[in-house]
């Protein structure tokens, strides 16, 4: 996101960019620059700091828009975006900004409690949660950590001889308590009231001038405090910077906050034995040495954190308690030492992260030691993983803080699994069918080969030559039937390698290549990107291509094979996870013990959500069509089939549950011919296109429902199909709840969280052009490092552009799948305080009064939004009066003027 020319000369290295940024924007660098003009500062940041904080940002900014604006005004777009979060109405960013405590505490802390959080594409949310709290160490990291410690020790020594005062300041500060040294993780804005009263916050005042203290404690006002602190004398400023995370934020790029969750962070003083910088370095040396010893395992081993800590305690004869503070203490030290090249200290940070998590959470984690790296299974390269087993840990603060949380995805099924694994009580949940004018998906289950061999990748039969040969037959049959692009998903890399080798020997690949070019996903991201590009070119030129991919790979999650890029998808087998993985086993055992989820249930659920994700790649808009071939007999079984999303089940016909490859090909050929027929635009009216009268009748029905629904139903959550839709709906105050679906009192009214799925249709109205569509969402919107989310949004708007000339005056109802951002999960938070008045009305407002144009609809809606917001912030108490917007089409009704 940086626009600085010198920094961006080494764009490819993210860490390097971060470090360079820090070296020019850190508080101490800036203050040094005041004394010494030769110190180079970032002019963009300086400009932003002087002027940008008062910038009047209106409208919608995508990542590129922000960059352009930054270039134009000479403001740093990154800090501009960070600043804008505090007043933006809609923010779209990655999951990590909300879920990873290290980042969330810096970025998302200032969001208001009444914000509505929408997790789009939430089907993988549990994995993101787990990743956010897991740490993996290998030998290289530990070596690096040891080196880092050596350097730290030298630095401390140097500082001791030059500026003892600074070290003593730090010591004194730490002695007073943990305070804000944790990077502001604790005294977050959401607990602002309390943090003011805490004695620990006052410590900044002790050593710094009043202005800096104000900056430190008033976290919410942090962004504005930058100029104020310029006037403060240097030592005081340094102390403020290192003591107060929020104030540091005013200075520039700050260090990541503690990896643990705010609620878990011990509000106590850092133990005496690590307060002294030298002692801390020595302590960490012991820890690293122990880890280096421990990692040398000959066989796989796993241990609970408690036993690991106990062993560490007895071996080192130290009390493991200080470990909890390792991360905060390290950050404090790095600040004190005014280290700018933080990227070089990544190994020790990782170790500190590991130690902190290990000591903080006795439950829900597991230390797994493996002697071999999965990439090189024969060369000893031991790794030590601290695996988070409990997905609910990372997401819990979100549920607790925000009043309304919405989970939505096209493939969020079965629905009851998510509340279990994330440990929350949904208020509303709903699953919608796809309302399409024609049956544009064709799910087929191929259960037997040509010779009646059951097709399955289950462990006993997967290496059977007959099975592999029949899979080859299936792929050849489909490749010779389906024009243009086709995707084949394999359950794992190893199986793909095995089967491709076999196919090569048997000439299967040759037969495939007679019809289509062949591209394969590899672990190398560059190679995969290249082959994807070539794949697209082959589809464009009519040569046709088939892409061999992994069901759990990057392609399955993030790449769309829409239109002619994917007319068919073939799933070879059920993509179960690698069940021998120790981390997975530990997680399964944990879930069995704590959430009463049977191992098998979870595995099936996980495999099928992946399958659904894979097959969903081919259909990305209502005009698209595609064949979905489930190549495993197990898909035909009731327990598997019913776990697929409703829109797939709905299209799956009993006759297509046990096909052979040949039959599948002939059904496919017929389907493709039918789908190639011109569409009947009239047929879409009433199902996927709504006229004004439809909208009106739906609105009337909604009002009627609302009247019958009991008042005061505690609800906060919307059922919606896409982030954009949900945001709009939520803005309109339509916190979905139909009387019969809501469960009154089932949740804490303070923090009502609702899970809703949009299996299929949700109403989205949008203006003809993608850009205008984004504008139409209304209000200031900032995208923070979420190009995917935004381009996805834009992409889906664009995707239907082609048919807009003829039906621009119609209200569109799109399949939810179409709206899903391209792989990048979008999280949207809406700050309720800001007004939505600055909606840029669309340009081409239709003159025809009889038909509601999209622009008018949006403008009207935006007004409603503004009203709704005011109403909700003014008089409504936390539990919002539920307004029933359960059916997806009803959401549209909100747009009725």
């Amino acid at each position: 996101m940086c626009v600085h020319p010198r920094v961006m000369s080494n764009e490819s290295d993210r860490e390097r960019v971060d470090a360079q940024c820090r070296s020019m924007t850190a508080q101490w660098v800036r203050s040094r620059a005041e004394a010494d003009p030769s110190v180079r500062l970032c002019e963009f940041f300086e400009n932003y700091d002087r002027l940008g904080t008062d910038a009047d940002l209106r409208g919608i900014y995508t990542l590129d828009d922000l960059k352009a604006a930054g270039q134009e005004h000479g403001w740093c777009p990154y800090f501009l975006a960070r600043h804008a979060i505090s007043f933006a109405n809609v923010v779209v960013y990655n999951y990590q900004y909300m879920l990873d405590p290290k980042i969330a505490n810096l970025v998302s802390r200032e969001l208001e409690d009444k914000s509505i959080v929408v997790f789009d594409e939430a089907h993988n949310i549990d994995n993101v949660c787990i990743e956010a709290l897991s740490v993996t160490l290998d030998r290289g990291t530990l070596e690096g950590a040891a080196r880092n410690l050596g350097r730290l020790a030298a630095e401390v020594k140097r500082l001791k001889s030059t500026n003892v005062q600074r070290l003593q300041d730090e010591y004194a500060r730490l002695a007073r308590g943990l305070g804000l040294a944790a990077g502001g993780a604790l005294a977050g804005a959401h607990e602002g009231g309390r943090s003011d009263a805490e004695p620990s916050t006052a410590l900044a005042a002790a050593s710094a001038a009043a202005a800096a203290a104000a900056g430190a404690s008033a976290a919410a006002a942090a962004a504005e405090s930058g100029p104020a602190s310029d006037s403060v004398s240097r030592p005081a400023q340094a102390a403020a910077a290192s003591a107060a995370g929020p104030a540091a934020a005013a200075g520039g790029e700050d260090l990541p906050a503690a990896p643990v969750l705010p609620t878990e962070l011990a509000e106590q003083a850092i133990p005496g034995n690590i307060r002294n910088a030298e002692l801390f370095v020595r302590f960490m040396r012991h820890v690293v040495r122990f880890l280096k010893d421990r990692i040398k395992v000959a066989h796989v081993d796993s241990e609970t954190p408690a036993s690991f800590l106990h062993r560490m305690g007895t071996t080192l004869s130290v009390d493991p308690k200080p470990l909890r503070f390792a991360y905060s203490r390290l950050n404090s030290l790095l600040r004190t030492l005014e280290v700018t090249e933080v990227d070089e200290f990544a190994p020790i940070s990782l170790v500190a992260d590991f130690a902190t998590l290990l000591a903080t959470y006795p439950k829900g984690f597991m230390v797994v030691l493996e002697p071999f790296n999965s990439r090189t299974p024969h060369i000893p390269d031991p790794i030590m993983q601290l695996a988070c087993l409990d997905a609910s840990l990372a997401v819990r603060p979100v549920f607790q803080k925000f009043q309304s949380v919405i989970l939505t995805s096209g493939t969020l099924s079965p629905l009851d699994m998510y509340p279990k694994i994330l440990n929350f009580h949904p208020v509303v949940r709903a699953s919608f069918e796809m309302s399409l004018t024609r049956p544009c998906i064709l799910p087929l289950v191929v259960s037997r080969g040509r010779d009646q061999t059951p097709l399955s990748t289950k462990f006993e039969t997967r290496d059977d030559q007959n099975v592999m040969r029949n899979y080859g037959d299936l792929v050849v049959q489909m490749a010779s039937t389906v024009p243009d692009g086709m995707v084949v998903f394999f359950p794992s890399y190893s199986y793909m390698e095995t089967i491709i080798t076999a196919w090569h020997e048997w000439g299967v690949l040759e037969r495939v290549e007679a019809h289509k070019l062949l591209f394969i996903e590899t672990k190398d991201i560059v190679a995969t990107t290249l082959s994807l590009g070539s794949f697209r070119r082959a589809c464009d030129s009519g040569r046709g291509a088939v892409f061999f991919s992994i069901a759990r790979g990057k392609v399955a999650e993030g790449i769309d094979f829409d239109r002619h890029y994917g007319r068919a998808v073939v799933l070879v087998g059920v993509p179960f996870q690698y069940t021998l993985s120790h981390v997975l086993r530990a997680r399964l055992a944990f879930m069995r013990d704590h959430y009463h989820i049977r191992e098998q249930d979870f595995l099936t659920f996980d495999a099928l959500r992946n399958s659904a994700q894979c097959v969903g790649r081919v259909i990305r808009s209502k005009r698209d069509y595609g064949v979905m071939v489930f190549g495993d007999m197990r898909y035909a079984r009731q327990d598997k089939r019913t776990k697929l999303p409703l829109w797939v089940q709905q299209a799956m016909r009993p006759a297509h549950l046990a096909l052979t490859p040949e039959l599948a090909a002939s059904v496919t050929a017929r389907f493709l011919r039918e789908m190639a027929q011109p569409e009947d635009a009239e047929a879409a009216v009433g199902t996927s296109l709504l006229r004004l009268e439809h909208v009106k009748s739906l609105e009337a029905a909604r009002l009627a429902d609302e009247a019958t629904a009991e008042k005061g139903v505690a609800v906060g959550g919307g059922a919606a199909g896409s982030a954009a839709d949900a945001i709009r709906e939520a803005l309109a105050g339509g916190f979905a709840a139909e009387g019969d679906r809501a469960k009154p009192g089932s949740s804490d009214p303070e923090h009502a969280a609702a899970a809703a799925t949009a299996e299929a249709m949700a109403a989205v109205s949008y203006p003809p052009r993608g850009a205008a569509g984004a504008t139409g969402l209304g209000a200031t919107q900032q995208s923070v490092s979420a190009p995917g989310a935004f381009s996805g949004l834009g992409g889906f708007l664009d995707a239907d552009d082609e048919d807009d000339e003829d039906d621009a005056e119609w209200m569109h109802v799109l399949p939810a799948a179409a709206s899903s951002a391209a792989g990048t999960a979008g999280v949207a938070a809406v700050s309720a305080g800001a007004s939505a008045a600055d909606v840029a009305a669309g340009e081409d407002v239709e003159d025809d009064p009889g038909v509601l144009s999209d622009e008018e609809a949006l403008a009207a809606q935006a007004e409603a939004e503004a009203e709704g917001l005011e109403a909700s912030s003014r008089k409504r108490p936390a539990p919002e009066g539920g307004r029933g917007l359960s059916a997806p089409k009803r959401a549209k009704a909100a747009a009725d003027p």
Partner: protein
Amino acid sequence: MSEKRGREAETPDDEYQWERQYERSWDTVQEDAAGRLVVGGACGEGSTEWKRRASARPSVFTPSRRGLLRHLVVVLDCSAAPALARDLPPSRLTVATLALQAFVAGFFAANPVASVALVAASHGTARTLARLTNGPRTILSALAEVEVADANADAEALAAGDSGAGAGAGRAFAVGGDFSIVAAVTEALGALDSVPSYGKKEALLVTGSIATKDGSDVGAVIRSAVDRRMLVSVVSLAGEMHVCKRLAEETSGGFAAALHAAHLAELLEAHFEPPELDDVGAAGPNGEERVPMEQVGFPRLAVGEAGMLLPEHRLTGEGFDCPRCKCRCGDVPSRCRVCGLRLMSAAHLARSYHHIFPAM
């Protein structure tokens, strides 16, 4: 309708599913308030096929320019894929050949002054089996040649991708190999090379392949078709192929995918009507209409004399004398072999007029 097909198209014979609604069609006849008999219910309401046919004909006649002197190249995909695909029994190629035979006859009946050529694409190349001609005879015999080649093709050899005999230029035509859209369009452009600027160049590509294997850029050949104002319509028997659709759309032709043999015939019939002229005869830079003039001769039938050798080396008892050079030719409409004058009878011209002034 497509939904219905999707749901019920299980047995092979239900391609005529739509006909079922005509069963017991007398039940649907009802008497309205005024005592008149009206056809209601299934026949009128649900029959999308009927609706489609009805809507195909414009209710209001709008005057438009249509080129009567049509020059159409029929390009038939004779590669291995359509010859092997059995989803339209006996094979896509056979079905297409039969449909084209009916089409050619009907086309000349509807457009007596048009000329048609036949190009067959196989083995990655395309060759002109019949040059532009004004009568169905040559085309039909060329189609018969394709039929023979289709029958002679060895399924095993085709499946194995063996190009076998016939790939060379000098040898007899053979079915098989790969389909190349570049070769097909290039050959069609070549076949239409002699067409004067006022003539409408059209190509009708009947394909049954799911892929095209080209040695050069497809985009370039599409651009050259656009540049040379050739309108390419594609009728596919294999569903929608992106590049075919693109070709049709960019050259302002039409893309259609046939569901079954009857539907294919119907789609081909749609090409009986000449396309609207947009470029030819448009107003020139100075505002004057650039309607090109074409000389036409109405020859006399000369009968009774003894056998006479025609310029095309055919011995005949009767023929037509060119009004300009008195040279004799065997058939009208045609071009005089000597002076190049377009020869036709008044009846031909009159019969072509129904496209411009349809019987209401």
